[in-house]
């Protein structure tokens, strides 16, 4: 299927890898799954002072079709879990996921019947951000972690 398996693991595909990874890592468009108070910090993260567009994630697209990283911000309710899973499935590959805040990572202080204890019960999470709500610079650190992860991925030969 296409260019990559005709070359196998040769010099050319590593070069294409770095090119593609460089392009992907510097334009990670977030899909803001803003649920609760972490969503306000996510707005501040995109706001004028902490300005996430310095790292390429300027565009807060609300449609899953044009976004790469999904930031789950806030406690995940059982009823909302299905909508989040649906939006995650509808995001095009390659996609990553940041669980922002203690509630998205582990259910946080809401140890009760309504809250899913951590969104990794139904989502493949790449980066967890601790804090309740985490300061915008903590979220930015998570974003940079995602960018490092993208740079070292073997993405092109992966999809043969």
């Amino acid at each position, binding site marked *: 299927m296409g260019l990559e398996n005709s070359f196998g693991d040769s010099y050319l595909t590593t070069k294409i890898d770095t090119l593609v990874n460089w392009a992907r890592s510097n334009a990670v468009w977030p899909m803001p799954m803003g649920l609760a108070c972490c969503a306000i910090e996510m707005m501040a993260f995109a706001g004028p002072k902490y300005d996430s567009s310095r790292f390429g994630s300027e565009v807060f697209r609300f449609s899953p079709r044009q976004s790469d990283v999904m930031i789950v911000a806030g406690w995940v309710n*059982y*009823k909302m*879990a299905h909508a989040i899973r649906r939006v995650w499935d509808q995001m095009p590959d390659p996609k990553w996921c940041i669980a922002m805040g203690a509630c998205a990572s582990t259910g946080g202080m809401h*140890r009760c*019947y*309504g809250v899913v204890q951590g969104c990794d019960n*139904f989502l493949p999470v790449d980066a967890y951000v601790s804090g309740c709500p985490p300061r915008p610079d903590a979220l930015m650190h998570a974003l940079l972690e995602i960018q490092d992860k993208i740079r070292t991925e073997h993405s092109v030969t992966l999809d043969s």
Partner: protein
Amino acid sequence: MALDLSEPLQKVIDGLAEDFSDALIDVYQSSGDTFVRIKPEANVEVCRYLKEEHHFIYLTDVIGADRFTSEERFEVIYNLVSLRDRERLFVKAWLEEESPEIASITEVWESANWFERQTYDMFGINFTNHPDLRRMYMPEDFEYYPLRKEFPLLGIPGSIELPSSTPDSEHEI
């Protein structure tokens, strides 16, 4: 018991005492708020009476409570406000444990619609002739009533389904 009621509230209690003497069970005060307990059957007339005669035109909230006693376990509390005399009054009714049922007061105040749906969702108190009695917060497939005292805080595992964590690319397109 010493009831230091303000002047308009005193008028309300006297009015209630003589018009609904049989429905009125108990009047008491606790830390500054006055509570009137009535029979559950008479709640619509009492509320309409309070609204027309005593200008309680704003329903702030309908609160459910679980007293967890053997008889008359559930409790419905109406939180009424009269803007003219700047007073707040609580009307209470106690309901039996199995199939708790009380008339809905949406025809007296329209705002009771959602408050009663929330109390139904949390306690299972059935409000008769309510326009559309559905669960407010939990999905309809949930069969328990969370705020009852016997429902565990951490919920019953498996009572609400979780989405599948495997992407369904395994299924066919």
